[in-house]
């Protein structure tokens, strides 16, 4: 593998996250490579390294960003509206992670895993509006990375 400058790697990570925050969609390898004046292969190497160090998670066998926690690139059961944009979160925890990352108020559309009842959540002025809802963490921390999507 070609040498990857750590500063370049983390600058790319920051750019990817800002793009997601600004557009609610992850950038492609070509977009990131063009932004930094890199070749396609250098951009690919950056994406693969960011996946390897768990800074983001690629769709297996592709260079498409699937997860950049707390954001999901694919629709999920957790829709978060913040700052006038609509995002997908990976799980109940990440649904609250989006307003935490954006430092923004948010409304979250989610459902109860057992009953299917709507479970709206709201963050206002840095506070979670009180709720009786709970999060069930199914997979122990030591096993989280066996299957990030399921976790």
């Amino acid at each position, binding site marked *: 593998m070609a040498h990857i400058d750590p500063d370049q790697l983390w600058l790319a990570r920051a750019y990817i996250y800002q793009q997601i925050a600004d557009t609610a969609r992850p950038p492609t390898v070509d977009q990131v490579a063009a932004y930094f004046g890199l070749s396609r292969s250098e951009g690919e190497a950056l994406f693969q390294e960011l996946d390897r160090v768990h800074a983001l998670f690629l769709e297996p066998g592709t260079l498409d960003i699937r997860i950049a926690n*707390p954001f999901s690139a694919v629709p999920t059961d957790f829709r978060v509206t913040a700052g006038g944009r609509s995002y997908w979160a990976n799980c109940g925890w990440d649904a609250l992670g989006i307003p935490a990352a954006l430092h923004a108020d948010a409304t979250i559309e989610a459902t109860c895993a057992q*009953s299917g009842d709507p479970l709206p959540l709201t963050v206002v002025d840095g506070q979670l509006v009180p709720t009786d809802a709970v*999060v*069930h*963490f199914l997979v122990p921390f030591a096993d989280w990375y066996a299957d990030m999507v399921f976790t």
Partner: protein
Amino acid sequence: MLFRSEELIDPWCAARGRARGEVLPMQTVWELSQRWYHNRLSADYRGRTAAEVGVIFREMGLTSAFWEMGGDPQAPQK
């Protein structure tokens, strides 16, 4: 996964043959989210190791075996 209330978790697990994991109230999850993600958009963020995650969990009072790291304390985290 989100549940409207804690008593709905056991039926969910039973229907799927899954062992019950750990349950946290939303307020605790909100506090964890803030600890975990507050600097995620910062240009200075350079990831987090399992050992650093362990510090967050301990400070949050998450000290059961469920929250223990498995292997390399330097392993990168989400």
